[in-house]
């Protein structure tokens, strides 16, 4: 069970070049909006036709530009959960689910709808029209409809973008369970690294229509490697760096700093990154940086403190520190430590 994708498509000035392989797993496609995530899914589903490439699902060729194979969407067995779910407004939830089971004979179809409704807790919703359903129910109907069509792969396009955040948490758990019981390949498109981290072990990063090699999510968080990957993984502090005079050190000219760094220097590194929640106020220790407090923003449970390291150039970026509220006391200046093992060395 595997999905191998290799597609190229030009759309005006935007070009998509994506390549990845998904095994029997929930693989994440992580990227900012407009990077080509949805377009990639549409190419796999057969809604859009790539200019070049090859898409193979469980040994079946869905698309091959060289052999001129283009399977219509109807024959691909690709389940697509649209961002807004695309439920048929003129049908009840029950009819929507049955619409997915078109290949089954009538009696079997009814049984299938009943099964899926029970599995997704939709018994009470069956007679309702989509606009009478809550966001979460709409999503479950859309999922039931997809499962009714017995897909070989499930594509989830930002599954929670249409939902209120208080609904998301519970639904995310349910969706995760559902995908596990589905047991096949699934692609989970998202721009939210937290969502991806909680639900997918491996991730394929997409940036400006280009894909990076598939990697482990944990590894992405620990060592993103490039600035864009670090940004997608949630890192918020970046600054240009030069190698320091001794090994294990780096120079950060814009902040006027020399920092110890646990990761060894490598060719091609141009920037450092450090996550806002790894920076802590400190009286002593390594990489102690005296700073002025420029601005304090209170979040719900945390405080975001924007710091200007003493000796910064005027155009230097501010350092962003996030810490739990109880650890913060109002002050105008303080020293923070940038833990050497938390400093990410990044290529452009």
């Amino acid at each position, binding site marked *: 069970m595997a999905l191998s994708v290799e597609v190229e498509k030009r759309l005006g000035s935007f070009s998509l070049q994506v390549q990845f392989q998904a095994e029997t797993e929930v693989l994440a496609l992580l990227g900012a909006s407009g990077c080509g995530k949805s377009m990639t899914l549409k190419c796999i589903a057969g809604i859009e036709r790539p200019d070049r490439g090859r898409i193979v699902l469980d040994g079946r060729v869905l698309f091959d530009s060289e052999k001129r194979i283009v399977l219509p969407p109807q024959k691909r067995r690709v389940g*697509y959960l649209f961002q*807004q779910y695309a439920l048929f407004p*003129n049908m009840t939830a029950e009819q929507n689910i049955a619409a997915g089971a*078109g290949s089954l004979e009538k009696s079997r179809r009814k049984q299938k709808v009943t099964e899926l409704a029970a599995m997704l807790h939709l018994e009470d919703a069956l007679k309702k029209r989509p606009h009478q359903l809550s966001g979460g129910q709409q999503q479950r109907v859309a999922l039931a409809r997809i499962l009714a069509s017995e897909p070989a792969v499930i594509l989830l396009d930002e599954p929670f973008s249409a939902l209120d955040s208080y609904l998301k948490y519970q639904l995310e758990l349910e969706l995760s369970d559902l995908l596990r019981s589905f047991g096949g390949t699934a692609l989970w498109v998202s721009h939210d690294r937290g969502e991806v981290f909680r639900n997918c072990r491996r991730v394929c990063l997409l940036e400006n229509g280009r894909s990076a090699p598939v990697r482990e999510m944990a590894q992405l968080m620990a060592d993103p490697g490039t600035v864009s990957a670090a940004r997608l993984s949630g890192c918020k502090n970046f600054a240009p760096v030069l190698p320091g005079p001794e090994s294990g050190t780096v120079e950060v000219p814009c902040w006027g700093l020399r920092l110890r760094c646990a990761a060894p220097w490598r060719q091609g590194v141009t920037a450092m990154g450090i996550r806002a929640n790894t920076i802590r106020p400190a009286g002593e220790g390594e990489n102690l940086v005296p700073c002025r407090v420029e601005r304090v923003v209170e979040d719900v449970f945390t405080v975001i403190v924007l710091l200007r390291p003493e000796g910064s150039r005027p155009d230097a970026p501010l350092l962003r520190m996030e810490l739990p509220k109880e650890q913060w006391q109002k002050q105008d200046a303080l020293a923070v430590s940038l833990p050497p093992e938390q400093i990410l060395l990044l290529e452009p």
Partner: protein
Amino acid sequence: MDWYPLYNSLRIAAISTALIFFLGILAAYYVAKTPRLVKGVLDVLFTLPLVLPPTVVGYLLLRLLGPKRIIGAWALEHFGLRLTMTWWSAIFATTVVIFPLMYRTARGAFESFDETLAQAARTLGRSNTWIFWRIRMPCCKQGILAGTVLAFARALGEYGATSMVAGYTPGRTATISTTVYQLWRTDNDALAFRWVLVNLAISAVVLLAVNMLERREKKGGKRPWR
């Protein structure tokens, strides 16, 4: 009062509306899918009868259907049929005149259709025919119905092209509109007025129907959960 003109008007309007229902939807469906350049040309062609004076439409029809013209002569020779000056000649006239109304409302409805619904149906293995009858048409139902009623109303009132192609023969080709004109011309004011009242009543009912359809569309909301 001889009710023949009412009967004739209604059957002409009903038949041409039935024809236009399919022709208009078909044209709208395919024009919505064609590339932009072809779309522009076809759109102009299909909308033209709406802006042309009905007499011009009548003239053009006579040039085609007259007994000595291309189609007219052919029909006369092969089937012995005269295409003009019969009650059903008016169907040609009304069909051409009301076609743009159906075509444009149907196209508007198709263009506002959410294409992701069709895409979703395709990934679920459904054929384009199924999508057309089970998703596209039901979702565009209100617009198409409104277009049909509007086309029917316009067909009932058609005068210019009808009078040229079908003429006015009492008891044969007379419609409400040609009858009113004829009665007025022959100073039969009282009877003309009665037909005017009949016409007003029908038109009012039809427009009421259109309004109710449109209100239902608004209240139902195309996709209120978005």
